[in-house]
Every structure is written in structure tokens, then in C-alpha cells.
């Protein structure tokens, strides 16, 4: 990092050395012990720390001092406000990177963090090392925001770095690098006139705060334009807000879409529809398709559906142009239906978010299931894609579909122009993880077949969630499935073909599930574990003996359908299963376990560690379990707390 402008409060030549010192961190946690520890740790990292134990206080602080913080760290479980809600608020209003934190490491919750746009997720107990590096999120975000603009401009990024233009933002930014990024950004904005920018931002670009009113204008503009036409430029024109730049709108639009996706994903879960999505694709299509015609009207009638949304939906259903706009529809409809801006009373009125979501998920299912019809207009559904391993046929039409993904993708989605053919996957529906690992596979030219297959292994190597990646590829919008639903899907390192089909079928994941169950090759152990997990979970739930279940891995019980099991997690899983297996009282469990074991073999996977662990611990009855719990010192392995089974792995 080069030294930034010297007009900041620090001596110019040591500015870069000092970064990330002075990073302004806001920590929110209702647990006083943790708060204190975090404060000390952060201070030791030479960050500037502000603590609060209530989310509302934190929000007030942030609103009051809009540029006063660089990053927010928040606990997930707080009494006054859900940490994820806070996350959304901050993301939408202040556009700051937010790190979520919890003792809860269950995949569902972590996934929630991802979908809500957290740039990282820390598992408690938080270690110094984890906190030391949080500055990367600040830099990354700035870089991202900056790149957004660069795509618009023809200028180069490097130009900015040579500027010594001072700015008040530099002083606000506690980091030299942050400052130099910012100054570069600002300089670009200031120089825009010479670059003949298309938008109206001739002003400096301070961080725009999306107030409720502004946001409402934004939503109104988007609604009027229709999501397929809602390009930042037009939105900007419609909003007609002086001083607002196209970039502001663009980045806000990304977040908005993300938010919608998230909402619909959550509401989909709440309504339980994700279960229905797990059925066969054809059946789902039929059932969902029937919903489309009927439900629109009934929903409208019931007042759940705002008229304009209905109109848009109908437009979507009935008058689809055969191009990208058709594909964009689902997004826009979710957009219209499910978005409830945190602060503003949306154009849609005060609709119960939950109800809305329920209806929306129905609609989404219906809408997205419309795609096949529309696909027919396009270059046909690539049925062969499903079930394909590694064969990647990318048609031009795929790129159209990929656009859906793009629309959900925050990081990559810059141009809302319908002719943008950049099939960036990074987004929806379980592809996220893959896309994290296959960022360059999807080039604007379409999928490169050679790289595609090459990347399959890359995907396979990815274990669990790469939370850090989420900031780069945050387009983890899951329109239809719940967290748990998503996680099952996302745990798969898919082959390229599957990836294509997933993108195409962003509406639901039937094909994916089917694939998952049918495929045995090319699967990492994780997939199999997830299958086992499901059955094993049943096993545990079938256990009549309370004490046995007492010691089942926490994550197993709390994540009923989560798909991805990490290694140690799984070991613990199996070990307890093994323990139960030995117990005579676990009658009902045994068959399931046996079934699981068979499944292991049938899937041609060896999970040697797991299997051996299965029988390494024999908890023959309650007392042994209790005593073994107490005698943990023997069993306690240096805690891999990430997996939530301290002492059980």
C-alpha cells in the first residue's frame, strides 16, 4: 500500500505503516464479558473502539455519526434486536462492512449471516488473530465500491492513487489506505466532469446515507421502471435527487436486491415452501405454474399483493418478452413484493412481512417456474445439463439465465443493462459457494469449458463456507429456499454442468437435489455426510433416551436439515452415533445407523476418521455418558470450537 495523502491527521510517510491502526470499530454485544474482552482485543490491535450493548444504541450512534465508523462487529443474538436486522440496517443505511459474531456456529446461522450480507462471521470465543484482520473487510469494501465506479468509467484505477487530494474523508478515515482509496474515489468524482460522466454527480462523493425518504424514492423509481428496466441511470433520473450519483444508486440497488432475495428466502423458509421445492422438478413446475395464474389474483384480492406488484406480476406472467427481461422478472417481482425497507414504509404499504413473504414465496415459485416457459422462447431448457458431470455446454441462452444470478449478485452486478451478458454466477441458490471458488470460470464470453471442468475440483476442495469470500461474492441471495434448504444445496461442489443447470433453474433446486442424491461420483465427502446427517438426525430424534440425546452434537439437533457437515463435526456425529449404537437401549436408532453405514459404503466414500470414531467412544449407558462428560479432560481435544462439539470430536 503506498502512502496516502499527507494531509490527513497522520504524518504522510508513516500513514501506510499505521494502517490498520486507528480503524474505527463499533462493537455491539449484549454480553458484558464478551464486550469487554473484544474491546480490549481491539484496542490491542490499535483500533479505535466504541462499544455498546444494545443494537438500538448502536444504530443511533451510527446514524448520528455517519462517517464515524469503519466497521461494525455485532453479536447475532441480542435481546432488543436481532443481529441480522441490525446488519441489514447498517448495510442499507450506512453501507459499512459488518461482521457477525456468535457462539452459535450452526450452519444455518452462519448462512444467514452470509445471506444478510455480513462480510464475515466469527465464532465465539473470538481470538485476537481473528480480530487483527478485520481491516481487510474495510479495504475490500472500499475497493469494491470503487471498482463499481471504475466499471462505469473508462478511467483507470491507478490514476487515483497518485493524487494527493486531501479530503475531509481522509480525516474521517482512520486508515491511510482507506484514506487513499477514498481520496482516489473522491478525486475521480471530482474529475468526472473532465471525464464526461453521464450522471449528475459533480459533487464530492461523501458516503450517501439512504434515509427512509430517499429509499422510498428509490423504491418508487424502481417499481415504476420495473426491475428489468431498473438500471441505476434511469433510477437516478427518476429520483432526481441532486447530489446523488449513479454509483450510489447502483450500489444501493445491489443491496436492495440482495435484501429482497434474502427476505424471500427467509420467508420461503418460514412458509415451509422450501420443502415443496424439494420435490421433483416437473411436479413442482406444474403445481407452481398453476399457482401463478390463480394466486396472483387471489393475492391481490386479499390485499397481500399491492396492486402495482400485481400489475407487474401479471405483466411478467402474461406478457413476457422473450429476452432477458423475462428472466429478470422473478427478481423484480420479489423485489416488489417482498421488500420492506427497514425504515421506510414502502410503497407497498405496511404489509406484514411474514405474510408477504409467504405469498411471495408462492409467487416466486410460480414466477420462477415460469421461466421454463420463457425459456422455450429462448434457446430451450438444457435438460441435459441436469445430471451432467463436468460436461459444460454453455449456450448463449445460458448467459441469459445467468443474468438472473447476476441480478442477485451484489458484488458483480454493476450494469443493469439488459444486454449485459456477463454470466457471473456468484449468486443465488447454493451456487454461491461454488462461485466463490469459480470466480473466473464465468467470463463474459460464457463458460470456458476447459476451465469449467478444471474448476470442479476447485469447488470440491472448498470445505464449508468460505466466509471471507462472502464479501467478494456477496450475491448470496436465496430466493426460494430457506437457510437450511440452501445449505444442503450449497454444500455441494457441483460440476460445471450442474452449475449451469442451477443457474438456469434459479427458481428452485429440485434438479439439484435430485442430482445430489443420484450422483455418487465427483462428490466430496461433504455431500455424503449431509445425506447421512439427515438420516442420522432422524436417528437421534428417534432416540427415546433423553440422556443419549443430551449428548448429541449440538449442531445436529439444531440444524435439522443442514447439509454440510465439516470434518470434525461429522466425526463427532459419528462417534456419538457409534456410542448409541453400542447402547442396548437405542433400539430404534440402530437400524437407522446401520442404514447410514450402508449408505456410507454405497456411496463409495471412505470417511475413515469418522468411521473409526464411530466406535471409538462407547457410551454404554447414561451414567457413562454423564461421567464421560465430567471426565472431559481426557476427551477434551484442543477445542475446535468452530464445530461446536467441544470435547466430542
Amino acid at each position: 500500500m503506498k502512502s496516502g495523502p499527507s494531509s490527513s491527521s497522520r504524518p504522510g510517510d508513516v500513514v501506510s505503516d499505521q494502517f490498520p491502526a486507528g480503524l474505527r470499530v463499533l462493537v455491539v454485544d449484549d454480553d458484558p464479558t464478551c464486550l469487554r474482552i473484544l474491546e480490549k482485543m481491539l484496542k490491542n490491535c490499535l483500533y479505535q473502539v466504541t462499544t455498546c450493548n444494545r443494537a438500538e444504541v448502536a444504530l443511533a450512534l451510527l446514524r448520528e455519526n455517519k462517517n464515524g465508523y469503519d466497521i461494525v462487529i455485532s453479536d447475532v443474538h441480542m435481546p432488543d434486536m436481532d443481529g441480522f436486522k441490525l446488519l441489514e440496517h447498517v448495510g442499507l443505511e450506512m453501507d459499512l462492512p459488518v461482521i457477525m459474531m456468535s457462539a452459535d456456529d450452526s450452519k444455518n446461522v452462519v448462512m444467514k449471516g452470509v445471506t444478510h450480507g455480513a462480510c464475515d462471521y466469527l465464532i465465539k470465543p473470538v481470538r485476537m488473530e481473528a480480530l487483527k484482520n478485520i481491516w481487510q473487510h474495510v479495504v475490500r469494501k472500499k475497493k469494491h465500491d470503487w471498482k463499481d465506479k471504475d466499471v462505469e468509467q473508462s478511467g483507470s484505477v491507478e490514476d487515483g492513487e497518485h493524487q494527493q487530494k486531501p479530503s475531509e474523508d481522509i480525516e474521517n478515515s482512520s486508515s491511510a489506505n482507506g484514506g487513499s482509496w477514498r481520496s482516489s474515489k473522491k478525486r475521480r468524482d471530482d474529475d468526472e466532469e473532465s471525464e464526461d460522466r453521464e450522471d449528475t454527480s459533480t459533487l464530492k462523493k461523501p458516503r450517501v446515507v439512504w434515509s427512509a425518504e430517499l429509499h422510498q424514492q428509490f423504491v418508487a423509481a424502481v417499481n415504476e421502471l420495473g426491475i428489468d428496466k431498473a438500471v441505476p441511470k434511469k433510477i437516478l433520473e427518476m429520483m432526481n435527487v441532486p447530489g446523488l450519483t449513479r454509483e450510489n444508486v447502483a450500489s444501493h440497488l445491489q443491496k436492495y436486491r440482495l435484501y429482497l432475495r434474502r427476505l424471500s428466502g427467509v420467508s420461503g423458509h418460514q412458509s415451509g415452501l422450501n420443502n415443496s421445492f424439494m420435490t421433483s422438478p416437473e411436479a413442482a413446475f406444474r403445481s407452481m405454474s398453476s399457482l401463478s395464474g390463480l394466486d396472483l389474483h387471489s393475492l391481490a384480492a386479499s390485499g397481500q399483493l399491492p396492486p402495482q406488484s400485481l400489475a407487474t406480476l401479471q405483466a411478467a406472467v402474461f406478457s413476457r418478452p422473450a429476452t432477458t427481461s423475462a428472466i429478470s422478472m422473478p427478481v423484480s417481482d420479489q423485489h416488489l413484493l417482498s421488500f420492506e425497507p427497514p425504515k421506510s414504509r414502502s410503497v407497498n404499504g405496511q404489509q406484514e412481512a411474514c405474510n408477504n413473504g409467504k405469498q411471495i414465496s408462492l409467487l416466486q415459485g410460480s414466477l420462477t417456474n415460469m421461466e421454463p416457459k420463457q425459456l422455450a422462447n429462448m434457446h430451450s431448457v438444457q435438460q441435459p445439463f441436469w445430471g451432467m458431470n463436468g460436461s459444460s455446454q454453455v449456450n448463449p441462452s445460458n448467459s441469459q439465465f445467468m443474468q438472473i444470478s447476476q441480478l442477485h449478485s451484489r458484488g458483480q452486478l454493476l450494469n443493469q443493462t439488459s444486454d449485459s451478458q456477463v454470466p457471473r454466477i456468484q449468486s443465488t441458490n447454493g451456487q454461491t459457494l461454488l462461485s466463490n471458488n469459480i470466480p473466473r470460470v464465468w467470463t463474459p464470453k460464457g463458460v470456458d469449458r476447459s476451465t469449467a471442468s478444471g474448476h470442479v475440483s476447485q469447488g470440491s476442495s472448498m470445505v464449508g463456507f468460505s466466509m471471507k469470500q462472502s464479501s467478494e461474492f456477496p450475491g448470496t441471495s436465496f430466493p426460494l429456499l430457506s437457510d437450511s434448504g440452501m445449505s444442503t444445496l450449497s454444500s455441494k461442489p457441483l460440476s460445471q454442468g450442474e452449475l449451469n443447470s442451477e443457474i438456469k433453474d434459479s427458481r428452485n433446486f429440485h434438479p439439484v437435489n435430485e442430482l445430489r442424491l443420484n450422483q455418487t461420483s465427483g462428490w466430496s465427502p461433504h455431500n455424503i455426510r449431509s445425506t447421512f446427517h439427515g438420516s442420522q438426525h432422524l436417528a437421534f430424534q428417534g432416540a427415546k433416551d433423553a440422556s443419549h440425546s443430551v449428548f448429541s452434537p449440538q449442531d445436529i439437533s439444531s440444524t435439522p436439515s443442514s447439509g454440510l457437515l465439516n470434518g470434525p463435526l461429522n466425526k463427532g456425529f459419528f462417534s456419538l452415533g457409534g456410542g448409541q449404537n453400542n447402547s442396548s437401549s437405542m433400539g430404534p436408532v440402530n437400524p437407522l445407523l446401520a442404514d447410514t453405514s450402508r449408505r456410507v459404503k454405497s456411496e463409495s466414500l471412505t470417511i475413515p476418521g469418522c468411521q473409526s470414531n464411530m466406535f471409538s467412544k462407547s457410551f454404554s449407558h447414561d451414567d457413562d455418558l454423564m461421567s464421560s462428560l465430567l471426565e472431559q479432560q481426557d476427551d477434551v481435544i484442543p477445542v475446535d470450537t468452530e464445530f461446536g462439539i467441544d470435547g466430542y470430536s
Partner: protein
Amino acid sequence: MEVVQLQRSFLEYTSSLFQEGFLDAQFSQLQQLQDESNPQFVMEVVTLFFEDTERLLNDLTTALDQSNVDFKKVDAHVHQLKGSSSSIGAQRVTNVCIPFRNTCEEQNIQGCLRCLQLVKQEYFLVKNKLEALFRLEQQIVAAGGVIPMVE
């Protein structure tokens, strides 16, 4: 000399606490955070932990005493306890929280009560140990010595 002896006792005692699983690496992190600018850091944090936990345990007892137990609430408390105990490295307390959360999820009142019992046990154990440790520290300081770093 007395200081040396005290220091040795301190080190031995601390090691034993780690070995017996009362404390884990997180506690070491806390110790490392302590410095001249904040010489009482560990004690402060641990005191906070004690206060917080005792409050939580009371809340838990009350919640489980209801005729209609709100398991979600119980679970929330346990979750908090898990978080704070793991943050200071009270490993055995954390470990009991895990099955405790399971019993909450299963809405198993007997299981919960059993776990609550265990948690209380572990908590008071670790509390005693830590208090003994602090006393040793104070003795060292009173005798003019410095508290040695463990490991």
C-alpha cells in the same frame, strides 16, 4: 524466597487448571491481553463473568421453575452462557452448555434440570479455582514479585 515459591505455586496451579480442563486457550489469550496499561484486566473480565453468570443461572432456575417452561428463553440464556464462558475460557462450563441446548431444543425438562445442575456445579468449581488463582496473584504482588506468564 517467598516470592519465588509463590510464583512457582502460581504456575503449577495454573497448569493444573489447564490440564484438568477448567481453563482453556482462551484464558491464555486473556492473560496475554493483560498489560501494564491494564494490569487487572483478567480479574476484571472474570469478575464480569461471575456476575453475569450468576444472573444467568438465576434466570435459568426461574425459567425452569415455571409450570409452563419457555424453552426458547431457556435456550437463549444457555446460549449466552455458552458465549461468555467460552470467551473467558471456562471450558467445562461451556461444555455443559452444549447438551443443555439440546435438551432445550427437545423441550426435555428433566434433561434441562439435570444440565442446569451440572452447569452450576461446573461454574462454582471454576469460580473457586479462579478465585484461588487471583489470591495467589495478589500474594505474589504483595510480596513484591511479578506474576509469571504461563506457557
